[in-house]
């Protein structure tokens, strides 16, 4: 039980959105799919769910090709920017429709979730604000009860309270269904502890694919007087550095080892690690 991606490339004209990507999303885990804009996150999710076709390679959901395979597709829900319903359809009607596509879709649950988010079910889909447009799609995703849940920027436009509600509902759903969750977000800080494994995409390639704990434990920040920090950094794999006056702070990969007394070592969270890693890659 897994999503297997084998040597997948995707080209849009001159642009190569994904370059020979091979990886596996194991079932029953929460994955964070991270990357800057244009890294290939949405393309990868669209390919997995069969909304796009790869230029090369293949994608398997539980061993079956997702493209043109209704059985594989019914097991997977992709929430993305795209709205798959007629624009002037009402929210409630869309809930009724969703039940036809997803065998596990729970209409009563959708209604209850909509009420918790104060989503107006009589509203037409195209009349919803950005935030409520996201909420509408989130409600569909949570009520679909599919074994695979792909969420592309699920909290886009949501206020802080609604984001909090969503994270908790997602974890409840995960506990109840033990589904596989893959989600991309730019608000890494908020989601970091929910994620078991992070996949970091960079310019169409997989840069990292590891447990979050392993990534963050494998790096640290060091700060102190610039010249002492510089001496300490010599020969170490530095991710990024910033200086303010005579005080220098740097993110470094590896073990801290012997640290001069005047330097301070602190841990990195996933978001800081991600930013530092991207800055390092920018220099390459």
């Amino acid at each position: 039980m897994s999503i297997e991606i084998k040597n997948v490339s995707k080209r849009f004209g001159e642009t190569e959105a994904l370059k020979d990507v091979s990886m596996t999303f194991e079932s029953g885990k929460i994955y964070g799919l991270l990357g800057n804009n244009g890294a290939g996150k949405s393309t990868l999710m669209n390919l997995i769910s069969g909304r796009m076709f790869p230029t090369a390679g293949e994608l398997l959901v539980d061993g079956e090709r997702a493209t043109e395979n209704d059985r594989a597709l019914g097991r997977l829900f992709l929430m993305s920017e795209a709205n798959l319903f007629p624009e002037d359809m009402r929210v409630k009607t869309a809930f009724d429709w969703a039940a036809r596509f997803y065998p596990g879709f729970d209409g009563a649950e959708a209604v209850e979730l909509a009420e918790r988010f104060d989503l107006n079910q009589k509203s037409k889909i195209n009349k919803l604000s950005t935030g409520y447009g996201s909420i509408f799609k989130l409600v569909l995703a949570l009520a679909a009860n599919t074994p695979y849940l792909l969420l592309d920027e699920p909290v886009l436009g949501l206020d802080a309270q609604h984001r909090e509600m969503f994270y908790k509902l997602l974890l409840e759903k995960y506990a109840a269904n033990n589904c596989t969750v893959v989600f991309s977000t730019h608000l890494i800080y908020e989601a970091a502890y929910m994620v078991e494994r992070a996949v970091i995409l960079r310019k169409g390639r997989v840069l990292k694919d590891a447990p979050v704990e392993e990534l963050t434990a494998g790096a640290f920040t060091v700060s102190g007087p610039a010249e002492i920090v510089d001496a300490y950094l010599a020969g170490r794999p530095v991710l990024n550095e910033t200086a303010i006056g005579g005080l220098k702070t740097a993110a470094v990969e590896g073990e801290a080892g012997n640290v001069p007394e005047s330097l301070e070592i602190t841990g990195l969270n996933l978001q800081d690690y991600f930013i530092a890693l991207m800055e390092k890659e920018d220099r390459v």
Partner: protein
Amino acid sequence: MEFNEGKPIFLQLAQQLEEGILSGAYPEEGQVPSITEYSVTYKINPATALKGISLLVDAGLLYKKRGVGMFVASGAREKLRGQRRERFFEDFVQSMVHEARQLGLTETELVRMVERGFDGDVD
């Protein structure tokens, strides 16, 4: 609960559970929240919550009642107090003396401050 960087989340959760046992928030023979409750409340991965709770199970502070949940073992509070007393020197005294030296405080001055602390100047 706010987590901080530099220390694995499961360790921070385990510590918070220990504090709960020490303070009586989780009384002996009382049930502690489930993995899912911890996961949802603190927005952490259930595997992380399980790892934290397992530490206390392995230490004999929590035990599992099959099909019911996790409970605080009797004697857990005293056991924790004993462990914390043993670690008190390295957890608190050593770093205090280190800081005092950096600030140029003498042993006598430090002892006086500790006495002042016991006299109720601090809570």
